[in-house]
């Protein structure tokens, strides 16, 4: 039984193109062009993963509303925002509503596929018992590559897929500077400098929320970032 992906997107050409790509990967795809029909369908039956555009025709913030409703229906349904809106504010709003990732439409199809696959993998891993061999420990940091979870001083740090991949790339070789290109490759996305900066900032902020003295991610001026293990 193939996994079911729902795409809520008002632009027919994009919707159909994504659908074709997902189908090629073997997923079953449901398409919606507005919030109302999508909600109706999701109330009847939840899909396995939802890709939402924020701007749904005249319903400017329809995507956000849809995300909130879906999160209310299910706490662990993977939700991805895929939108043309690249502002920091939108990204923060989207992720605060519980989305697992916030992607702009710049993302290439293979990168999108990789993310979707990763999300499904994480779902599977969550259902399995924890496996010690997929863990990386760096002092106070503990990374579960299977479940894509990170713990700092035994407290879970909620990261998006992109953030997790960046975090993982940094912490894998502590002390080594990862430049922007390396981080971009690790995150499987084409990002500009400022987006990378935003991601790093967001990651730092999430750690600082747990531990105000967090200083493990250091900026190497002109080069990139590195993970400091004490």
């Amino acid at each position, binding site marked *: 039984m193939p996994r079911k992906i729902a795409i809520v997107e008002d632009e027919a050409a994009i919707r159909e193109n994504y659908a074709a*790509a997902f189908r090629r990967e073997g997923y079953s795809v449901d398409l919606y062009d507005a919030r109302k029909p999508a909600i109706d369908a999701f109330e009847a039956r939840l899909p396995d993963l939802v890709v939402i555009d924020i701007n749904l025709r005249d319903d400017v913030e329809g995507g956000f509303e849809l995300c909130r409703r879906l999160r209310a229906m299910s706490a662990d349904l993977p939700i991805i925002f895929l939108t*043309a809106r690249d502002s*920091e504010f939108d990204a923060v709003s989207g992720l605060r509503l519980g989305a697992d990732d916030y992607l702009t*439409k710049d993302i290439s*199809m293979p990168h999108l596929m990789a993310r979707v696959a990763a999300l499904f993998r994480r779902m599977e891993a969550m259902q399995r018992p924890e496996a010690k061999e997929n863990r990386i420990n760096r002092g106070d940091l503990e990374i579960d590559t299977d479940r894509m979870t990170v713990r700092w001083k035994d407290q879970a740090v909620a990261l998006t897929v992109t953030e997790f991949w960046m975090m993982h790339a940094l912490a894998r070789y502590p002390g080594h500077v990862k430049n922007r290109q390396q981080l971009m490759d690790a995150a499987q996305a084409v990002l500009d400098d400022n987006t990378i900066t935003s991601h790093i900032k967001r990651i730092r902020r999430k750690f600082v929320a747990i531990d105000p003295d967090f200083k493990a991610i250091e900026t190497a*001026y*002109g080069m990139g970032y590195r993970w400091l293990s004490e």
Partner: protein
Amino acid sequence: MNLRRQLLLVSLLTLVLPWAGCQFIRETETALREGQQRMLSGTAQAIADSLSQFPSEFLAAGTDGTFRDSQIFGHSLVNEPFIDGYIDDWSLSEESIRTLPGNEGAIRFSFGVFGQYVYLFVEARDSTVIYAAAPSAAGDAFFEHIDLLSIDAVGTRSEFTFRPEAPGALFGQRLVEGEVKEESRIQAHWQDTPSGYRLEARIPRQLLGVFLGLSVTNTRSASSPGITRSSYQGSTPGRFITTSPILTSAVNGYAQSDLRLIVTDRAGWRLAQAGQLGDTRGGGAEAGDLGWMHRAYNALLEQGDDAVLAEPHPSGREQQAYLRRALEAEAASAWFRSAQSGRAVIAVARPIWSGNVQTGALVLQQGTDAILSLTNKSLGRLINFTLIATLGVGLVLLGYASWLSLRVRRLSAAAERALDEDATQLALPSANASDEIGDLSRSFSQVLRQLGNYNEYLRTLASKLSHELRTPLTIVKSSLENLEHEPLTDDARQYTARARDGAARLQKILSAMSEASRVEELMQNAEPEAIDIHDALQSATAAYAGAWPERRFRFEASMDVAPFSGSPEMIMQMLDKLVDNAIGFSGKQDEIVISLETKGDQYRLSVANPGPPLPDRMRTQLFDSMVSVREGPGYEHLGLGLYIAMLIAKGHGGTIRAENTHEGVVFHIYLPINQTENNRA
């Protein structure tokens, strides 16, 4: 030429005021003078008419009244002369003395009249004065003698002679039919001088007739006859003219102060004179005091003849042009001005008729202080008022111009500042003024506002455009990606590869375009961290050296630590943009210098590179969105790099400047040092 100079120049136009004033004074003076002249003419005509009742006083019998050189004028003497051979007590000027050409030099002579006596003075040069031997020894001996020939109205000839036997007093002698008879009524004095002799004689008036001639005989030796020089040629001497007592008393009745009357006969000989003019020769002291004013007069007022010319001629014969016209039966007038005192003399001349015969002419001269004082005062006042007015107007205009140019300069400075600092909402000075500068200020504000709107539009254009283009680009890209999974020919694959390449480039451009708005957003949300700019720049310089091995990088700093509160990523991004720019404009092996200095309460972060200078026209727009001075097809250079650097500098409370150096270009970022305190506060 600036506004102040222009207005000063304009203020010189007030100098037209004195010119106009002078014209007015001139007109007034002329009018006054003409009025007075008319009045004087009337008086002169009346006097001339009254004088026509004395025809005999003008024309002696047997004369036609025309001028001949042989005519002799007897000057009226003021005092009775003492007969001593000296002419000093005659009170005559040198011009009153006539000359005869003698064989040893000029023979000077003069006739005077005082009371009932005629006086004679002769001075001759003579190296050999030969005296008569004895009164009775008249024979063939020769000696010096002076003779007078007189013919009376009825034609009786009388001859008188002076024959000195020795220097000193002597009597004149009368020649009657070759006999010499002493005439004791004629007293004389002969005096030798180093060069010759002098004779002064007194002859009763009644002995002399209408015609009178003088002969002087210079004898070289007692044995040879002397050479005789006469005041006449032929047998008839010239008319003897003396002042007419009747006419004098007649005109004396008209004499007033500052009014002079002169009556002449037809030859111009002065028959009567009455009245005196004021001091027309001008006092020296007065002239010194008012020197500049008189110079102004002479420059401004109509020129009259010199007042000295109005004086009666010492020779006794008046020859002024206006008088000559009157002698030709024409009414004439003239005016004179003393160059020194500025005093004017008005003269009119009228012919005197006796029946149909013109007997002479009357000259009336009036000196006038009225015109002088009027014009004098007006001119003085005019000059003073004009000077004050010109000075005042000049000062007011200067002040006004200064004020105007100050406003204009303030406005222009404010407008420039607004342009420089991109502060398009800045309130410009004079915005509330109701004059043209106010209009200008408001127009400027309007232009600046529009410019601001336009800049704002440009700024958002990039991000709006990139946002709008993103969706169609996504369609293209996703379609191409799907297409690659379809069975395609090799050619078709090539085309899709090219299409993807193009789409990728397009995407790069779009993300560059939206970068600025993302930076702005980040700047707003950025939480400042304490960083050490010195450390950051040092490490970044090392990183750049690694990234661009074909360039040389150098870091200079005037301090070891540079604490700053800001966003390190943003500062680095700003540096990236500047370094990127520096690399773009420099050649291989060029050295890019990154430096950090403290300038007052600011850090100055500079990136300098050798290379072509910035064109002047781009200096102010350099940091605007989508402005590039770079030429060539580099698609990544949308002209956003420096704009982003500017946004970041501004976001940190700093400024950015570009300068041309003699080697290339340097960009300075000024960041406030005390930002840490500000942020904490």
